[in-house]
């Protein structure tokens, strides 16, 4: 079973994504900020990460940079899910960038594609 790490500071959204992914046959783990996210990524070795950009403390792009510096993590695909409407360039190497509120089917199809 493929595992997805959800990094978002809003527990309601984490809950939503967890339910959505689990309903569609994925395992999940989650983190509420950058440090937690990096720790979880190392520990859980997810197959894919969804990343919020604006979080208290360090922001999403920082997470991405630190993750890219880690050999074990740098090849994990990242999907940015954020409230900023012009976020495509915030994390250049993300496989996709979705704006909240996102389209459920679109997200699932991107996840499926990225994990294929």
């Amino acid at each position, binding site marked *: 079973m493929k595992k997805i790490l959800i990094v978002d500071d809003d527990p309601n*959204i984490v809950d939503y994504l967890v339910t959505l992914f689990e309903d569609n046959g994925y395992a999940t783990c989650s983190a509420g900020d950058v440090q937690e996210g990096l720790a979880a990524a190392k520990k859980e070795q997810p197959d894919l990460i969804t990343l919020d950009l604006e979080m208290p403390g360090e922001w999403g792009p920082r997470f991405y940079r630190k993750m890219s510096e880690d050999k074990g993590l740098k090849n994990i695909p990242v999907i940015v899910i954020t409230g900023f409407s012009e976020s495509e360039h915030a994390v250049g190497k993300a496989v996709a960038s979705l704006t909240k509120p996102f389209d459920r089917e679109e997200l699932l199809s991107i996840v499926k594609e990225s994990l294929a």
Partner: protein
Amino acid sequence: MATEILLIDKDKGHAEALGVYLERQQFEVYKAGSPDDVLMLFDNLSVEIVLADPGLPDTDTVHLLKQIKKSHPGVQLIIMSADEQLDQAMDLLKQDVVHYLLKPVKSAALDLAVKQARTWIAMNKKVVRYEKEFKDLRNAQNLYQQLFNEVPCYISVQDREFRLTATNRMFKRDFGDEIGSYCYEVYKHRGSPCRNCPVAATFEDGLPHPTEEIVTSKSGKQYNVLTWTAPIRNSLGQVTQVMEMSTNITRLRQLQDHLTSLGLMIGSMSHGVKGMLTALDGGVYQLETGLARNDEQRTSKAFGQVKQMTGRIRNMVLEILYYAKSRELSYEPVDISKMVEKVLNNAKAIADKNGINLEASIANDLGAIEVDPNWMQAALVNFMENAVDACTYDRSKEDHAVKFDVFDPGGDRICFVIQDNGMGMDQETREKMFTLFFTSKGSQGTGLGLFIANRVIHQHGGTIKVESELQKGTRFKISLPRKKPEQPLRTDKPEKWANSLLDDSGKGST
């Protein structure tokens, strides 16, 4: 319809003969012996020609004829008279008569006289018709003039040089009776025609052109107007003049300003809103799937989340509604030197980045002032930023400086003078600079900065004087009362704006 002729002749034989002759020529002929017969006939017929022998020296008939001529001026008189009475007849009737004939009447002379009478009748009828038409025309013209004057728009008619040839009352009221002046002088106080002039475009292609303009009235008030042009053509179809109709939509724009600021505020809240909507999506999803799977635990959890999100969204909407209403400034006594220092720090960063020299001369012991510090600092920084920008954009000279003077002119007021030797402004820019979304910086500007700054100064009971000259520079003199104005002046902008103006250093915000 045959022309009706009345024959008055005491000589029955002669009358009979004439009657036969005229009837043969398709005239309707009536004969009268006595004056009483005549008057009765006139009441019941539409006689147009009277052929009469005055029967002098008896003058009864002459009086009768005069009476007829008076009551029916359109009736044409032809007099037949014996040679020896002709002079007297002429003397008595004069120009009331169209033709005099000698008795016995010869047919050729009679034909000519009748023909002439009919010509007169036709001409008279024409004159009457023209008179009526002329009257109608005058009424119509009055009506159109009235409409032209009463239309609740500024209407002007202009020639190819944009000279005003006619203006309506509303135009005269707000812009003066300026027939012969140039449109751009009167409306915009400019010295040359405006770019993208809709009147010029209509002269060019003969089609109406709409634009939106900001114009300045004779009393210096600014109006937003929606302008529509229409060609005026001569009988050959050529456009000789153009009518320009401008509807004053200032109040509409003011409302729009308000809505726009609300929109901007919502924009700044949108991040939060988006998060809430996503969470609401999540709740709905879980509610849906929970119900489909009969998963009571999931359903009830999801319901809780939907409820929570609905509540949060509700609160946010209420907050927006609260913000949408006017808010009072939060005044507090502020040490002027400290406030000025903060403003200078902000401005210095911007000036340094652009290589502009910033000279400040701040008087000592300025004391305190009652202001809303967030707003006031934001406004002052904005003026400084604009001064720096005016220098940065000016390519006419090398050395640029922005001067900032703060002093106490007495009268319980404080003066802030911001002076630059940058590009300066022409009159049009000067008049429009405090207008929302007006910018002279192209895509670099938002048209917000000075609009808000101006509003803040006025809400604090302050005044702004602007002196500017192209290529020479601009001087803003802001005078603020030390004490909060008695009449509470209100602002309808959330503080967030003030902060973002302060943070938004590099970009000029006007």
